[in-house]
Structure formats: C-alpha cells, structure tokens
C-alpha cells in the first residue's frame, strides 16, 4: 500500500532527514516515534505528498506520489492533522463533508449521497450526535474523532495521523487508539506518529524510530521497541516493565540519568 525508498525529506533550504525506507500493507499500522524536532511531522508531510521528496521516492498503491495530481492523491491518502487553533465556525457535518472534495468534480457540491457517507463515518466513530454542532466548540477528544471521521469519509485506503493522541485526556486516548485498531481491522493501512512507545507497542505492527531525521530502527514494533532503543531515542534511561501480557516503558527507577544518544 505504502512504500518509501531511501527517502530524504525536508525543505529546499534545509534537509530534515534521510535514509528512510519502509513498506506497509493494508490492514497494518506503522507508528513513527522520535523526540521533539526529530522530523516526524516533516516525514509524514512527505509521505502525504505535501512536501516533495528531496531524494528517493514514495509509492502509494503502486503509484509514484509525484505522478499523482492533488485529487488522485487525496483518493489514496487521508490525513488527520495535529489539533490546531479553531478556525471558522463550520459545523461538524460541514467539516466531514469537506473530505468529499477528494471525489467531487471542481464545481460540484456534496449531495445527498455525500451527506450519507459523512453521517455514516460520524456514526462509525460514535459521534453522529455531534453533526450539527460547531466544530470549533467541541472538546479536543470530540474534535479528534470528527477529524478521523472526516478521513474515513474521504474513502482512502491509507490513513496518516499526526500525533492523534497528543493533548487528549486518558479516556479519549484509549478511545482514539481503539478506533485505530478497528480501522486497521477493517483493512486500512495506518501511519501515526506518537510520543508514547507503549501506544506503538500495543497498537502498531511496525515502528519507525527517528533520531535527528535518521531511522534508528524500522522493524516489527515489538522488535524495534527495546528498552535500549527507547533509551537511545529519547536520551533518558528507561525500564521495560511487564504487566501480564503488556509491556510498559517507564523512566528508570535509578533516576533519569542521561544516556548518550
């Protein structure tokens, strides 16, 4: 579904990262981890085709991303951006219907069929009751679910989410992650970035660890996310605690001593 080969990414004036190769099939989830400023968002933007690759290439569904025009790209990849300051007072349904731009001709407006798709996506995420509310007035968790619903209504097989659980409370995090699991089960390919190694362990098949734009590891999540790698990634000592079948990373009991990155 998604493949990147020796990808270099960044801006014309500043290269952010390089050497990223990865592959992802439908029904699989990839988590991208890295410290602040490691280049996670820039990498995601490049995978989305919003930034041109500086070197190497990205393939989606067998097509080189550069060969796809904006709308064709939007039919293949849906994007859930990081939460940002509220914009215009669009209703939730208006926001979700915007996803239909990926399918509608230039001068068309969403019709009855599109409204059906939008409402259906909202109810799949359990937020259909919010349809007539103003998007900007929702809580952070509700907004995130609505944005995921919008991505679903875009009907793209690949979903890219930029820190979908950042700034959410404990309950909403669990809810969003459970939704991602369900969507993966439904056959979507999912890429998300996160600051929580446990989230990657519990909810992703693969993990890409980015340190200063370079891949520290790309492997099955359980293989890539060793205590050692997590220490190197974040520069603090961690303990891997096993609680029943689950693994948790916690800062080392002996204190957060520095670890050479």
């Amino acid at each position, binding site marked *: 579904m998604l493949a990147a080969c020796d990808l270099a990414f960044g801006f014309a004036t500043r290269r952010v990262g390089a050497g990223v190769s990865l592959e992802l099939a439908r029904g699989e989830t990839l988590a991208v981890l890295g410290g602040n400023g490691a280049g996670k968002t820039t990498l995601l933007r490049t995978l989305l085709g919003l930034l041109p690759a500086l070197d190497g290439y990205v393939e989606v569904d067998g097509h080189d991303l550069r060969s796809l025009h904006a709308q064709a790209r*939007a039919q293949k990849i849906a994007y859930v951006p990081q939460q940002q300051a509220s914009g*215009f007072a*669009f209703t939730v349904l208006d926001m979700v219907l*915007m996803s239909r731009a*990926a399918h509608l001709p230039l*001068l068309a*407006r969403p019709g009855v069929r599109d*409204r059906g798709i939008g409402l259906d996506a909202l109810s799949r995420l359990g937020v259909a009751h919010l*349809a007539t509310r103003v998007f900007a007035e929702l809580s952070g968790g509700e907004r995130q679910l609505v944005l995921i619903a919008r991505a679903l209504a*875009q009907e793209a097989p690949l979903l890219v989410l930029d820190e979908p659980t950042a700034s959410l409370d404990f309950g909403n995090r669990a809810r969003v992650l459970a939704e991602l699991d369900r969507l993966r089960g439904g056959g979507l390919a999912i890429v998300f970035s996160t600051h929580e190694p446990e989230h990657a362990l519990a909810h992703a098949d693969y993990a890409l660890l980015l340190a200063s734009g370079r891949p520290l590891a790309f492997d099955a999540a359980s293989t890539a996310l060793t205590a050692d790698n997590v220490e190197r990634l974040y520069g603090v000592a961690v303990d891997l605690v096993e609680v029943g079948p689950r693994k948790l990373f916690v800062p080392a009991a002996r204190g957060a001593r520095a670890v050479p990155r």
Partner: protein
Amino acid sequence: MSAAVVQSPPRRWRRIAPFSIALAALVVIAFVSIGVGRYPLSPGEVLGVLWSGLHDATEGTAGAIVWQIRLPRIGVAALVGAALSVAGAAFQHLFRNPLVAPDTLGVSAGAALGAVLAIVFGARLVAIEAAAFAGGLGAVGIVMLVAHRLPARDPLVTLILTGVVVASLLGAGISLAKTIADPYNELPAITFWLMGSFASSTYLALAWRIDLLALAEDEARALGVRTTALRLVVIASATLATAAAVAVSGIIGWVGLIVPHMARLIVGPAFARLLPLAAVLGAGLMLAIDSVARASLAIEVPPGILTAVIGTPAFIALLARARRDLF
C-alpha cells in the same frame, strides 16, 4: 442514514430565512430611498411614478428625478455595497484573517489609483475599469509579497499593517492625481454590472471548494484541493469586484470589513450561504447610508462617517447577540 439526510420543512426555512428577510429589507430600503432627497416624494407619489414609468411615461419633474437620477444612483449604491461585501468575505476567508478587507489590504487604494491615473490619461469606460483592476491586483500582490518577506511573529497583523501602509502610500498617489481629475465620473453602470456579476458567478460556482481554503494549507491540500490555483482565482475575483466598486464610487471603507462579519454571525462561514447574504446586507447598508447622505440637506456628509455611524452600532448589537465565534 437517509432519514436524517432529508431536511424537514422548518429546517429548510431556517436556512433561507435570513436571506429572505435581508432581501425584503433591501426592497423596503430601496423604496424608501426613492422618496428621499432634496425633492422629497411621498410613498404614494413614488408608487405613481414607478407605475407610470413602467408604462413608458416618465414625464414631469418627479418622473425625471426618480428614473434618471434616483434609481440609477440606488442601483449603483446597492451594487457597490454588495461588491465590497462579497470581496471582503472572500479576502477574510482566503487569508483566514478577520481584519482583512478590500481597504485594509490596499486593494481599494490600488484600484482607485489605477482608475484615477487612467482618467488623468484620458482613458474611458472599459480602460478605466481595466486600470482599476490592474491597480488592485498590483496592490494586493505587493502587500502579499512584502508581508511574506517580513520576519513575522504574527502573520495576521503583519499582513494588515503592510496593507494599511501600502494603502496610505497609494492614497498619497491618489490625492496627487485627484488634483488633476475627479474620480466621480459618468462611468456607465453596465461595465460595473458585468465585472461584478463575473466575480460573483465565479464565487457561486466555486463556493463549496472555497470553503476548504479556510482550513490549514496542508489540510486543504490533503483533501485534494489545488490551493494555489484556487487562491489566485479567489484573489482575482475579489479584486475585480473591488475594482468595479471603486471605479464608480471611489474608496468606501468599512463596508467590506464589517458586513462579512455580520453575515457570518447570522449564517455561519459556509460560502454558499454566506455570500448571497453578505451581498444583500452590503447592498442594503450601502443604500441606507447613501439615503441618509441624500436626506441631509444642509451639509454633504462624507460616506465614511456615515458608514461608521450606521454600521458600528449594528455591528456591536450583532456581536452582543452572537452565539458563534467570529471565526
């Protein structure tokens, strides 16, 4: 799902009610406006003159005043108000900036300078409008370029400050040129009408796509919108509408800034509903202002003062009752 999709009659009425009411108000204002002026006419006389005028009989002082002076002026005032409001709504949407308007972006000043220079050089009709359009495009281009190059901590404020500064510079040029020419000329309303309706139909056709420009750049592009091309179309259309208005009536501030907010407070930000309401509200407001200017016998009240006097209380009242955010 389909049950929820079908709109019940009350809801459909709620959707068109604001526009219908504003349109009715516009008609009433226009009717009152016909009777207002240094030669006052009673509503009965106005009706009589309109009726006989429809049957090709415009003789008499009242007939001449209504058909040759007041109705054309009313038409132009309404169109100017509508054009500036539509342009303001488009610019605010495009730049995601509540302070943007044809005048604060420098578009009005650029268009005025273009028109005035064209008049100075003896151009007529279409050439004046073309020069106004070119001047407006040039101004918004300069403003965007300068604002883009400045190291901005707050891009919203930088854009406006640049716009205001460029506008005042252009204003100096206008004042200079004005000593030679008078921009209030007998430009026929037809060219204005053509330009305004071209810009408006562009908007109505693209209305829903334009909604998506209110999203963050990345978000809109990931939804399949070719943002750069669409932005250029929106800027060109808004500048065209502004240029059309400025070329017939000079720079009128305030309307293009406030009316879009009023409309947005009433029907929300979706362009397909915002645009018609902004046009009708702008037309009504401009007409009301023009009527007051004509009714005041002793002194010629500058339109800028009247726009503020009438518009500010209306805007504050709307703000106080607003349940939505401005943006």
